[in-house]
């Protein structure tokens, strides 16, 4: 054991260790029993559950481990729960999809687990190097997953687009990080904050803010760095799209918050302005572009862009309230977005692609249960009470008003009103259109049923009783450091 690395450090990275171990086991099983999909799913889910349990061991702590490279705090725990849950739901909805598409389950689950591992380091890293390597682990896994449907040219194209633009934005991000290192001489977030405090921020730091903002903006699909998202979301396998739009986005937000709130409070006024512009552009363009989409996955892609815009409000606000409400929104977004994608996955059958809006036609007559669930997800995405989406919006927009960003809140409310149009358009298709495939109801396997059940439960329960989520989010936001300076500079 190297000097300065104690047994405690290994204890603190137990969730990550379990996940890595599980991933290796899955990879081995994929070689030994390549056709046993259920076993692979079981082991993968078991790994996730074990990881969740071990995360909850540390949920009340607030310490740094591994020589100051990782934070074990409620903030990290909250995001780990989110990414692990989204990975679990993704796997559950993948099971039938893999069967229909005839994909190899072993490598697929392995890559999902590795992407999750990267996300967990993004959530807990407090050093630019850790964050960067976590981001890359996630991104490389997603490059492969996006192109997992090898015979499908759309999937190829999605992979190429995501890969090239991802590598490009990585260059921009790294350039910004190198500037920060040059100005402060350290990569530790804490160290950066200390080095920058007490001096008027130089233009180089502002330059770094823009470059890092652009690099992270790419990952969360913020306008104008969003353009990959619709194409990649459309071409990638649907469960991967779901995971990309929830897990990847959540982890990137964690990393973004860590970098900007913990390391760069000295230039809070600057990045707050940057994200103000990004938030307005993102939600407006996302919603308006979604209005006329005919492909369901593409529409959900734009919707997820718009939601990134709402989430950015929490970053703009930058206070503990703002971050807490953003976390609530992320928690809510997880259920509704994954639920909507689960329905899209359920529409996929050997003879039907099922990701066009018109494929939903008459779903209410074919599968009333599926239609009602989709209705709930759409209402929640649109922010209609009493669904969870409404709660998230109330808190988020309330935080914005509270911090004096009234115009931002007004724009966000107007955007929500616009967004209702295309969400309800889905409802119109399900209820008021001719049956697209008469007489063939959707079939939910057990895995899909569980996934949909969890998504519905989250969407409804957090709409009626959001207390639990609020408490967790507040505790998580409380452990993020650097607010005092942010508030002072607001």
């Amino acid at each position, binding site marked *: 054991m190297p000097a300065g690395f104690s047994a405690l450090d290994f204890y603190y990275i137990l969730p990550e260790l379990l996940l890595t171990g599980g991933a290796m086991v899955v990879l081995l099983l994929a070689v030994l029993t390549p056709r046993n999909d259920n076993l692979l799913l079981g082991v993968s889910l078991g790994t996730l559950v074990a990881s969740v349990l071990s995360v909850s061991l540390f949920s009340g702590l607030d310490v740094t481990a591994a020589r100051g490279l990782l934070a074990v705090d409620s903030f990290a725990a909250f995001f780990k729960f989110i990414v692990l849950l989204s990975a679990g739901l993704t796997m559950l909805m993948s099971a039938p999809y893999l069967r229909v598409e005839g994909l190899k389950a072993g490598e697929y689950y392995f890559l999902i687990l590795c992407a999750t591992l990267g996300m967990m380091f993004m959530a807990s890293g407090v050093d630019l190097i850790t964050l960067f390597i976590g981001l890359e682990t996630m991104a490389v896994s997603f490059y492969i997953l996006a192109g997992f449907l090898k015979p499908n040219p759309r999937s190829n194209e999605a992979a*190429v*687009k995501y890969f*090239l*633009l991802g590598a*490009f*934005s990585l260059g*921009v991000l790294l350039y910004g990080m190198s500037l920060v290192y040059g100005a402060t001489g350290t990569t530790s977030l804490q160290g950066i904050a200390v080095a920058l405090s007490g001096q008027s921020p130089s*233009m180089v730091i*502002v*330059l770094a803010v*823009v*470059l890092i903002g*652009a690099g992270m*903006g*790419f990952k969360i699909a913020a306008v*104008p*760095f969003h*353009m*990959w998202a*619709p*194409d990649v979301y459309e071409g990638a396998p649907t469960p991967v799209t779901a995971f990309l739009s929830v897990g990847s986005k959540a982890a990137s937000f964690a990393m973004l918050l860590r970098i900007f709130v913990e390391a760069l409070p000295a230039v809070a006024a600057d990045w707050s302005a*940057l994200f103000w*512009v990004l938030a307005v552009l993102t939600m407006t*363009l996302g919603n*308006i*572009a979604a*209005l*006329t989409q005919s492909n369901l996955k593409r529409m959900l892609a734009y919707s997820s862009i718009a939601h990134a815009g709402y989430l950015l409000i929490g970053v703009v606000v930058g206070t503990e*309230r703002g971050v807490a409400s953003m976390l609530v929104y992320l928690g809510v977004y997880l259920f509704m977005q994954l639920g909507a994608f689960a329905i899209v996955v359920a529409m996929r059958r050997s003879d039907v692609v099922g990701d066009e809006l018109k494929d939903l036609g008459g779903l*209410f*007559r074919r599968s*009333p*249960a599926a239609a009602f669930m989709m209705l709930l997800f759409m209402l929640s995405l649109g922010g*209609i*009470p*009493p669904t969870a989406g409404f*709660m998230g919006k*109330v*808190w988020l927009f*309330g935080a914005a*008003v*509270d911090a004096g960003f009234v115009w931002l*809140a*007004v724009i966000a*409310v*107007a955007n929500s*009103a*616009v967004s*209702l*149009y295309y969400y*309800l358009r889905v409802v*119109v298709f399900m*209820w*008021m*259109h001719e049956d697209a495939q008469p007489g063939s109801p959707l079939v939910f396997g057990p895995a899909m049923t569980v996934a949909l059940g969890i998504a519905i439960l989250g969407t409804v329960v957090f709409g*009626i*009783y*959001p*207390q639990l989520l*609020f408490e967790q989010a507040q505790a998580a936001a409380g452990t993020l450091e650097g607010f005092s300076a942010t508030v002072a500079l607001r």
Partner: protein
Amino acid sequence: MDFIWLIPLLPGVGAAINGLLGIRYFSKVLAARIACATMGAALLLSLVAFLELLGLEHREHVVTLAHWIPPIPLETASGIGAFEVPWAFRLDPLSGMMILIVTGIGFLIHLYSTAYMDHEPRGGYVRFFCYLNLFCFFMLTLVLGSTFLVMFVGWEGVGLCSYLLIGFWYHKQSASDAGKKAFIVNRIGDFGFVLGVFLVFYTFGTVDFREVAEAASHMPVEVAGFGVVSAICLLLFVGAVGKSAQIPLYVWLPDAMEGPTPVSALIHAATMVTAGVYMVGRNAVLFEHAPMVMTVVATVGALTALMAATIGLVQTDIKKVLAYSTVSQLGYMFLATGVGAFAAGAFHLMTHAFFKALLFLGSGSVIHAMDEEQDMKKMGGLKYYMGTTFITMFIGAIAIAGVPPFSGFFSKDEILYRTFLSNKWLWGLAVVTAGMTAFYMFRLIFMTFFGDYRGPGWKHEEHGGHAEEHGHTWHGPHESPRLMTVPLMVLAVGAFAAGFVGVPAALGGGNAIEHFLEPSFVATSASHAGEAEHAVAHLSHGAELALMAFSVLVGLAGISLAYHLYVRRRGQADRLAANWSVAHRVLLNKYYVDEAYGATAIDGTMASARGLWTVDRRVVDGAVNGAGWLTRALSWVSHVLDKYVVDGLVNLVGWICQEGSYLFRRVQTGLIQNYAVATLFGVFAFITMYLVARYVGV
């Protein structure tokens, strides 16, 4: 009385059962029974709750079901407040009256629909009842909700149901367009409402109606300036304008008639569209503290009433006449609230619910009898075929025209009286509207039920042609089945008798409803005692009676004018020329010129013999001519406004969004490098922004 939460829930359960199971498995009869049973049970519960309410000292009962939004610290004008919202329902006189209206009329319309929708295929039939029940669920949540947010749940929900039901026959392009239009227009209103609620919380630190009223009652009345309360009220009123179809957002309601007729009766006449009036009444204390907004409310109400009435004069589609009439009557209610007569507004809301639901259902019966024909020019003489419908609709028309002792008289007169006390100009507008209302309602009655039958034939040669397109044979106009006429009769009784709860003091009554509703419009029961000091000025009973007589005379004049034009003259005309029977197709003034000319030319000798009477008549005709021309001009102006300004605005918003959407789609070229260029452009723009901000100094 803790069971009041069951009242909204029961229809909700009905909707859930029919929606989840019924569409696949239930027969028509079973689905209809479930829907009607849940509504019936809700009606019974409402009655019980209402009776218990009468026995309460404070006339108020709040039931908190569960926590909804846990306390969220939010900044308000007076420090940090806890934004906490429970699932709470409030039963007080206003909501008590509303639940009776919603469940009572709702139940009748459910019954009526079982027969009216009978020719729908099974799936559509069950779907219809599912929506209808769902609507009642949301509507009852709206009226029972004890906070702005619970009300908002219902507010959005009824909007959704309305949207679904307008587009019920979605394969009809016009129907789905109308649904879309309703949706877009209502979004504008909702935007105002949401902002208003935000501002309410910011100002008062609570969203509970009672607490807001308490807090507002301690604020100064904003007589001179436009303060925060005025801002709140204006925003809330924007919401009400959208929901209750007032200028300038009324355009969706006439189009909403694309929905099935029972829907028009329930949602677009009796209940949902009155939600705006209800909401303003609910916040009476707030509005009383914002006199400027009150003036806006009254003016908008009066103008809407007048404008919609003028349009109603020239419509020939039976449902369109009723739709404009509804807009006009809603304007009346806002006029009442705007002059501070909240009780009168609510009273008119109730009587209107009866007679307008009656008229709509009656028109549905007529349309049913005429095989889906809605054009009054193709009706006529129907009283010989469908006596019950005729008599009940006639009662409704008398009620809306304001003839004593029918219900409309009392409520309308109360509004006119209070308006007279407050603003003579608005009173003038309202009286003119009352005359027009009487005219066009009886024009409707006369065109539909009197004169000769002008519809398609059915007896011999044309027997198959028209009817068999619909898949069933039509045997000519006929009375509707009992399930449809019984609700008509019940409503007719209501339309006749509902006014007696509010007989004014001048007629020896006690104006019971006003005293009953009063607690809902004041801050506390304590300040109720001090009500006398801000009591409005009174006229002597004699003057009041004179006003009353005047308004009745105006109503009667309207009726007699309609009779003059659509019954008497036509009879005369029939003897004169064979083609006279389609004269009502001709525009009003032209009709008169021709008629007068024909009368003088052919009956010239008779004319000289009649002497003075003819001169009289010419004067009258001339005046009518002028009025007709003016009306047409007004209608035209309203129509142009409607089509190019209001529609234009709505379309513009939609157009901008749509074009923006296409623009963004064009930018999305699919070329990776263009995406990278966009990223680079973002970087460049942001760096430039900072450079400019820092070194140029903006």
